[in-house]
């Protein structure tokens, strides 16, 4: 099918996955309201997979599946002409796979948590679907207005999700911190957009790029605008020094939401950032390049050092998530084909391994917010071998051991950095990775080498069927991308082919 954006009706086709998710999200909300009184009492069975909350979870999962079908259908579509506000390119569709995958995994690992914590399932799953739709708008945006709207749809949904557990003080506190700093960051991003608009006279990223390379842009306004845009994105991807909110928010938010934030929100922000950088500002690299270079270097060094001293596993994973943002920023500084493909590949693998690790953290915490210290993992591997092996695989992959997807992802990021002759960043990346072995392997060491404080300490750890499903998928894909990376990498390389002024 051919899409021509001069006809407004064709936007409906181009936005089919987002529209499916939005409508389905609202549907889940409505069904949730009508189910509320049934779900308020304890279920007779006590089985989380049979409760009213679980019905809504499966319903939401069908919405993600529907959006995934629509996304697959878009592969058969191509645009004629140009000037649309929505991209219909492979880059967007690959990003959509990552975002939909993150949403599906989050829903799968949250069933028992939502049930145990008695969260309002309709709102919880509805907000996840709507926030995912916002992220997909960011991935699709060819116009700064659309990026801003997508970012806000995502952020407002995630603010609410962070503060979702209203009985928990920490959740409310995390929500407030995330909201204040997130809105602050949005102010910077918007002022950046306003100044770039003032400098170039357009909000369309391609038109901005044309104006910048033709030299018609006002230099001063453009420089300040790009700097502020970069700061705004830096907040969203949690780059040092704009990371202050991250550990608190990730620690306080409900654990499935933390998994969602650290994978999907980050992926969406990086995808939009990369598109803006390579399409709009390839000629203005004297402005953004030093900023992003320092952000990447500082993020990799500082986050890994701070992660070394954490004893709370959720907080440690928060710092690890900041560190991974640093590795991904290396790909943005390089901004060539290999780096962009590496970024997509790494985001895919990171989503799988991070969500998988959080799934087991939720299990060990008894589907609640307790038992989050490293000592609570003592002897866990021998008590629950399957979960222990899965967590070990995720940790090794996060650390970047050969044979896992995380290793191949780092190799591709390094390759991108080498193509751009970013030797210093490449060295920092390798050294930071070596430092990160310590805190990832410490958990594995506690799991396999220490005896539990009480012999039956891990007897109550359960992984219900949906969580098992998520774990199987994540482990399989992390190992597959680690052992046979070429298929996923070729797919990622084909996806970035038409992106813009990528240095080959």
């Amino acid at each position: 099918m051919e899409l021509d954006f001069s006809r407004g009706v064709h936007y409906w086709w181009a936005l089919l996955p987002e529209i499916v998710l939005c409508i389905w999200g609202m549907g889940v909300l409505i069904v949730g309201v009508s189910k509320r009184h049934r779900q308020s009492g304890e279920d007779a069975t006590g089985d989380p997979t049979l409760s009213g909350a679980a019905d809504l979870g499966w319903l939401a999962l069908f919405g993600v599946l529907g959006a995934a079908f629509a996304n697959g259908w878009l592969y058969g579509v191509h645009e004629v002409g140009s000037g649309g506000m929505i991209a219909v390119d492979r880059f967007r569709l690959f990003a959509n796979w990552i975002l939909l995958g993150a949403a599906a995994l989050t829903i799968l690992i949250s069933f028992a948590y939502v049930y145990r914590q008695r969260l309002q399932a309709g709102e919880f799953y509805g907000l996840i679907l709507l926030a995912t739709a916002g992220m997909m708008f960011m991935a699709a945006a060819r116009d700064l207005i659309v990026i801003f709207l997508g970012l806000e749809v995502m952020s407002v949904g995630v603010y609410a999700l962070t503060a979702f557990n209203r009985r928990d003080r920490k959740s409310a506190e995390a929500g407030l911190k995330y909201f204040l700093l997130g809105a602050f960051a949005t102010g910077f991003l918007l002022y950046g957009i306003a100044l770039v608009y003032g400098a170039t006279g357009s909000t369309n990223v391609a038109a901005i790029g044309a104006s910048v390379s033709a030299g018609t842009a006002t230099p001063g306004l453009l420089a300040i605008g790009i700097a502020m845009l970069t700061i705004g994105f830096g907040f969203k991807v949690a780059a040092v020094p704009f990371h202050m909110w991250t550990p608190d928010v990730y620690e306080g938010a409900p654990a499935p939401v933390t998994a969602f934030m650290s994978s999907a929100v980050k992926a969406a922000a990086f995808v939009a950032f990369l598109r803006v950088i390579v399409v709009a500002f390839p000629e203005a690299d004297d402005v953004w390049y030093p900023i992003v270079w320092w952000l990447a270097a500082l993020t990799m060094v500082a986050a890994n050092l701070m992660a070394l001293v954490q004893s709370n596993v959720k907080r440690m994973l928060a710092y690890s998530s900041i560190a991974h943002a640093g590795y991904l920023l290396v790909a943005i500084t390089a901004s060539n084909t290999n780096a962009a493909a590496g970024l997509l590949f790494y985001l895919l693998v990171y989503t799988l391994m991070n969500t998988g690790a959080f799934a087991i953290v939720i299990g060990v915490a008894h589907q609640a917010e307790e038992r989050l210290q490293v000592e609570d993992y003592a002897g866990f591997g021998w008590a629950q071998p399957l979960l222990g092996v899965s967590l070990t695989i995720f940790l090794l992959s996060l650390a970047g051991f050969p044979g896992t997807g995380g290793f191949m992802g780092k190799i591709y990021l390094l390759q991108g950095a080498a193509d751009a002759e970013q030797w210093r960043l490449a060295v920092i990346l390798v050294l930071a990775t070596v430092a990160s072995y310590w805190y990832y392997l410490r958990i594995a060491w506690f799991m396999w080498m220490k005896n539990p404080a009480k012999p039956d300490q891990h007897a109550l750890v359960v992984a219900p069927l949906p969580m098992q499903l998520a774990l199987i998928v994540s482990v399989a894909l992390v190992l597959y991308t680690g052992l046979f990376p070429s298929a996923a990498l070729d797919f990622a390389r084909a996806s970035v082919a038409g992106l813009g002024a990528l240095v080959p």
Partner: protein
Amino acid sequence: MITEAIVLSAILFVIGTFGVLVRRNAIIMFLCIELQLNAVNVAFVAFSNLFGIDGQIFVFFVMTVAAAEAAVGLAIIISIFRHYESVDVGSFNLLKW
């Protein structure tokens, strides 16, 4: 005329930024963020004088989004007040900043 408007918007933005960084009351911080967004609106209206209608349309989007953000933000502030009887961000420290 446009220069004056841009200077005004920059001043508003700086006041908002300082407010967020200096004040400790969550509602005042939120109002300072709104001030930042309105600085953005002034800038857009001024620039759209040069470049056509796009900037003014953007202002409508910013206002709509600010309203949605206010709804969620005030709900979060109410929820925190129920727990702590205070909206001073210095007064709760379960999580270190």
